[in-house]
């Protein structure tokens, strides 16, 4: 089964909305709020559309609003992959 990682999230976000202001995608950014990494709600909507397309899941906008940090986003996607 596919697992969605922080690196996967980082690659999609960088492609969709540019590199993070903190630089690298490592464990230190896992619990930082997206806005501190320089990503606003549009960046997250754009990234969630792309992730949904890649993994063939639909991520509703309400769920995007709840993704405050990279960790919550990765956990959400993995939970959806397990359920799917």
């Amino acid at each position, binding site marked *: 089964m596919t697992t969605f990682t922080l690196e996967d999230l980082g690659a999609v976000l960088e*492609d*969709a*909305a*540019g*590199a*993070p*202001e903190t630089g690298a995608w490592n464990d230190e950014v896992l619990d930082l709020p997206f806005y501190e990494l*320089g*990503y606003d709600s*549009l*960046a997250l*909507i*754009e990234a969630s*559309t792309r992730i949904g*397309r890649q993994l063939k899941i639909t991520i509703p906008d309400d769920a995007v609003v709840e993704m405050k940090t990279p960790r919550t986003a990765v956990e959400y996607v993995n939970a959806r992959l397990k359920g799917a």
Partner: protein
Amino acid sequence: MIAAGTAVVTGMDVVAPTGIGVEEHWAATLAGTPAIGPIERFDASGYPVRLAGEVRGFDETVLVPPRLVPQTDRMTQFALAAAEGALNDSALDLSTVPEFERAVVTANSSGGFEFGQRELENLWSRGSDYVGAYQSIAWFYAANTGQVSIRHGFKGNCGVVATEQAGGLDAAGQARRVLRNGARVVLTGGTDASLCPWGFITQLRTGLLSTRTDPSRAYLPFDADANGFLPGEGGAMLVMEPYDSATTRGARIYGALTGYACGFDPPPGSGRPPVLARVARRALDDAGLGPGDVDVVFADAVGTPELDRAEASAIREVFRRPVPVAAPKALTGRLYAGGAVLDLVTALLCLRDQVIPAAAGVRVDPRLDIDLVTGAPRPAAISTVLVLARGYGGFTAAAVLSHPGKDR
């Protein structure tokens, strides 16, 4: 003597076909280096217009923060680069100015066409799920003001003016108003970049563009051979502050915006004349100056016989003497909202270096009876410059720039 609250320019930066950066632009302008050439940004071979003034060598991965590159159109990337350059040039310590006393006022006339074209292609070839979320903001006229405001924390009275090619002067006029209402610093200017098929077809519809393929004979304002203009891309950004606070912090001052006025032409067929002469007089009145005080006029210089005749007639009517006229747009093509802003920068450099650039390649039509500077730059004593701009459909604006010297 410049009055305390007068808006003065303390910083500027350029992204234009003539160069990236003020000095590169000025050197190319004085040298008369042509910046018009065959279009390289897209395959224009199927279009009636093949030439343009393109910005060459702009590396957005260096000049724009990486996070903003995928989110923005080229016009916004130009604005972000020029805004940062202008702020650096001003040497203003932003920590001394509260966020709500800093504002951004830009002009824009096309919006983010290149970005929008890409997303429209996604829409009709792949479906709505493939349209990027940033399309919602990247196409917008206000995108440049918004992105610059966010990046530099300019949270005051921001705005955008969309008055086609008069926009650069209207933005400066609005910036002055914002300063009078209490702002301490305003970033103003404008950039456009719509050299893509979608942007191009909207420009072709005006019927004002030159269809010639020889870059040296295509855009010839005030020439007997005038046959339309060529589009360009780019523009400039300026830092404006009130004269008193600029002098208090010891800022270098390029010049003062001492006069501004705008107007709109009567509808075609009304029998009434265009408003350009009246707007020019009102801008001079606003500056407390008369036609005799003006040392050089920066013409709008559309490059169609009819509009050139109208402008020459307005200049003769206002001045009633052979005032020197500059048309540096002949080198770059018309940059839409960025065109008049670039003229403001060039005019301020005239004040600094006391020389008028030439309209390279133009042989002025003697029937127009204006003293257009052609051939080589002309040294002159310059204290006051009048800048004229007209936009498609009747937009008209004029600005007066004055030398910052103490005894002028």
